């Protein structure tokens, strides 16, 4: 089982990016996809929602997605077409929500102190490729490579199904 490789622009974030910064609480009543998408990183990175393209890749530091269980924080990224989120570590509810929405959430297979290498080699807007078959993140122009931890099989199954809804549907129909 493996996912198809993706190429997209890098969006760079730091440590402890919290769910209020990803999706402010005042918009939690919104169910419409487009409207939800328009508020992603509204005050943290105002350009994101306008400029993000399908398959773009988010790079984060430690504890990405900490805070609330609000699924809007994942859905607003999904509805913007984000192809993968790669970070040093994730807060657990955000991580599950991402898997449940079919977004690959991956962690760097590097020592935390080496995260600085990632930030010095990838600039925001750079084209990067996530190669799932080799578990490598590669910069398209300079060919810098970073090792990524493979997704556990039980999570890959959910992501491959397109998320927990499809996965549960398949399971209950079987």
């Amino acid at each position, binding site marked *: 089982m493996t996912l198809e490789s993706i190429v997209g622009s890098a969006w760079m974030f730091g440590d402890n990016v919290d769910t209020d910064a990803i999706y*402010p609480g005042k918009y*939690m*009543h919104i169910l419409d996809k487009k409207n939800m998408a328009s508020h992603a990183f509204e005050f943290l990175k105002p350009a994101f929602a306008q400029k993000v393209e399908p398959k773009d890749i988010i790079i984060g530091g430690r*504890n990405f997605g900490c805070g*609330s269980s609000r*699924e809007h924080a994942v859905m607003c990224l999904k509805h913007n077409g984000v192809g993968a989120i790669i970070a040093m570590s994730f807060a657990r509810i955000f991580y599950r929500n991402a898997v449940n929405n079919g977004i690959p959430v991956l962690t760097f297979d590097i020592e935390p102190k080496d995260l600085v290498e990632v930030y010095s080699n990838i600039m925001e807007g750079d084209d990067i490729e996530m190669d799932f078959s080799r578990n490598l993140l590669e910069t398209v122009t300079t060919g810098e490579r970073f090792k990524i931890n493979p997704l556990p099989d039980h999570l890959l199954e959910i992501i491959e199904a397109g*998320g927990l809804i499809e996965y549960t*549907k398949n399971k209950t129909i079987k």
Partner: protein
Amino acid sequence: MSGTIAEKALARASGNKVVEPKEVITAKVDKAMSHDATALVLKQFGSIGAGRIWDPDRAVVVLDHRVPANTVESANAHTLIRKVVQHQGIKNFYDVGEGIGHILMMEKGHVLPGELIVGTDSHSTSYGALGALGTGIGATEMAAVWATGELWLKVPETVNIIYTGSRPGTIVGKDIILYTLGKLGAEFANYKAVEYSGEVTGALAIDDRMSICNMSVEMGTKFATVPFDKVTDKFFKSNFPGALDKIDMDGLTRDPDANFDHTKEFDITDIEPQVACPPNVDDVKPVNDVAGIEFQQALLGTCTNGSLSDLEVAAKYLKGNKVHRNVRMYVVPGSRKIYLEALRAGMIEIFIEAGCVVLNPGCGPCMGAHQGLLAPGEIALSTSNRNFRGRMGSPDAKIYLASPATVAASALEGKITSPSEVTKK
């Protein structure tokens, strides 16, 4: 046998004799709590194509996040939720004004020791105050729980946090958990279960345990539990006699040779009241290090500190005094029951005479949806659980977190002040 409480509870929930950390299990959920996010749960539940909820008696639905409805969209969502609750036969439904989900779960007897409880809210770890395993999940996952009654879980490693020494009179559960967050950091317990022990923990009241388990999620924990003991036993015997009759009491205690990933011990004999500084929950300082910072909004309440004892502490400072003229203070009782008890005890009168605005039970200003947002440049001192940038309104406002005593004492002074500097009545 070498199980921690989390391992033993997850073994039971997954129908296994024993489970090991890192093992992926499918567990049966005992209770499922969802709040205003139920609207999104329903959308996802519909997409799965499921018709009936797996067990309407195990679902609890509470409207607490945007109450009374702050927008037409919220009102619409509430209407939809009410309809579905009726259609699905969910009896445990608490409408606008009944209280905050986490507080109601415990107040109404929906939490039993050893149970596995999921909620569409990260602070579902609160249920550990009664010896249960509570954890937050997203709306899609809740839809799957509604459809199947199950979810997959990776059995977490357990961290043992021991509080020793003797607790100073001004120090409450909130100070203890803030202190712990400051020492261990926002990522310390990510993916892990935390179990609290030690003589100080054993002597804490349920309300203090609630603050601690509630805010344990701010260090990333999956579950946070205070082991069942005589305090928990008394809570059930006086509030829900007979509720423990069918519980396997052996499952509620850790085995003598339980394996812990980490053990951390804190002597709290000499700790001061604690304050978390913006914008991180783990940037925690003793109150005297931040004393003198002026603020414009004080908030007393929320799922962390909306209990009767929290209101009681604050009332002791506010009685016969006036909140500083530069400060607006909001008081949010955690539930209708707490509101009524505070009213009958004369506390609500104290708050109103002190110049506070008493709001309806609910999540209120804590998550920045309505009821008291902050303007750019403003500062709040709050008993709530998060001080992230933009949490309570403008991204250019700042939030400090502290105990009810610190918030009430400081509100009188208009600046962050140690409660020991202000005389109680």
